[in-house]
């Protein structure tokens, strides 16, 4: 589904990520974990085409998209749910969902909104509420539902559990599991290493802009080095 080769992104003269190689197979959930400032968000933004790539290539379903503009990547099925959610605060829940389907045929929108309200029942109760007055957890669910409205082939989730109460974090990971069981391909970025490995097939550990470790998720969670460095820290 996704193939990344030698990806390097620089902010001015500072390289935020350097020579990353990773891939996401169709129907799998892959995690990108690592500490704050490691370059995870930068990587997702390069995949979405909202930060320029200094070197390397990105291929989606075998086609190179390194130079494709950000809105065309969404049309091709590469959809990001950003860190900090970025819901459109002044617009209603329904309008946010409609905008999620911006690149989709309009006759499918109503049906897809109904599907989202099934998956996230809280959104059905707040259809006309401005997104800005939702709680953090509700905003995260709205952001995920909005991303799904685009019918992504590959869904990029950037720290969906960040800043949420433990109960809500649990719900978010339940939804990721549910999406996985429906066959959704996901690239998940998390600092919540333990829970994110639990829902993933494969994982990459990023530190200081480079991949330092990779492997099947169950192997990594059993790895004593990973346990020492990450699993003790969170949850």
């Amino acid at each position, binding site marked *: 589904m996704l193939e990344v080769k030698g990806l390097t992104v620089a902010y001015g003269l500072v390289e935020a990520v350097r020579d990353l190689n990773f891939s996401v197979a169709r129907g799998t959930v892959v995690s990108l974990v690592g500490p704050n400032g490691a370059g995870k968000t930068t990587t997702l933004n390069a995949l979405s085409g909202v930060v320029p790539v200094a070197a390397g290539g990105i291929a989606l379903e075998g086609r190179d998209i390194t130079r494709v*503009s*950000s*809105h065309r990547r969404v049309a091709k099925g590469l*959809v990001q749910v950003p860190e900090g959610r970025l819901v*459109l605060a*002044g617009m209603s829940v329904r309008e946010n969902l409609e905008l999620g389907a*911006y690149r989709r045929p309009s006759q499918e929108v109503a049906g897809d909104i109904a599907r989202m309200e099934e998956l996230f029942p809280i959104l059905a109760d707040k259809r006309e509420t401005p997104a800005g007055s939702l709680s953090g957890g509700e905003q995260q669910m709205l952001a995920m539902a909005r991303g799904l409205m685009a019918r992504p082939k590959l869904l990029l989730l950037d720290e969906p559990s960040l800043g949420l109460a433990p109960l809500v974090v649990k719900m978010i990971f339940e939804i990721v599991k549910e999406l996985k069981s429906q066959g959704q391909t996901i690239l998940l970025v998390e600092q919540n290493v333990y829970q994110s490995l639990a829902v993933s097939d494969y994982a990459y550990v990023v530190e200081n802009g480079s991949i330092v470790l990779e492997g099947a998720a169950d192997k990594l969670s059993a790895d004593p080095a990973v346990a020492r460095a990450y699993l003790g820290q969170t949850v």
Partner: protein
Amino acid sequence: MNVLGQQLVNGLFIGGMYSLFAVGYTLVFGVLDILNLAHAAVFTMGGLAALWLVQSAGLSIWAAFPLATLLAGVLGLLVNQVAFVPLRRRPDTYFSGLISSIAMAIIFEALAMQIFGAHNVRFPAGTVPVVIWRLGGITITLLQVEILATVVLLMVTLTQLLKRARIGKAIRAVAENQRAARLLGINVDGVIAFTFFLSSALGGAAGILFGLYFDSLSPDMGRPIELKGLAVIVLGGMGSVPGAILGGLAFGLSEVLTVAISGTSNLRDAVAFTMLFAIMLLRPSGILGKGRTREA
């Protein structure tokens, strides 16, 4: 009493045109947080283009109005492309864009001067048939009714477009958060260009109506309305479309009422701008402040 009634009616028409003009400023400001100071020059070009279409191309005003409005919209695309796009990545884009849009205004004005001369020109007699009604001592002309109908039609269309249409929602999304809009698959640069088109088309339409109403056009006719338009959007709340509509009406009414009450036009602008300061004191964010294009 009838003098007052008459002035109220006149204020409504003038205010409506101010609203139309100011909505163009506020649309671009709401989306980009920048002022397009070429807006008044596009207003002028719209009026003069309609005049040319009627006078030299022999079109009726009904054909000339939409054509000149479209042309003004295209000028807006040009302003965006030449004065704003190249500066977008600069850290001083707000200030440098202000300056480069003034430069565009000067170029437009010079071109208009070259084509139409520096003197005042007017639509040929009979462009709009002269029909006058008297209702209880208040005079209303067909032209006034047509102007008001046009303003209302354009405002309702714009409001509905922003509220319901796909492109309208995209404009509001870009106004609220460009990065979020990009991640939703919105072509942000395209939406910005369309916003300039829309804003300038409305400004051009205002120029045509102004030229018809005051029966006079000139290459510098945009000057006096430029500052009034800015005052109107400050009054209404920067970036708010309904605010610009209300602000325009308030401004137009205050002007004519000052003339009616003081009996001279000397104080007209002074009172209108004093009202601006008074409202700023009471509501620093404007009548409908805080609201942006996104809340249209």
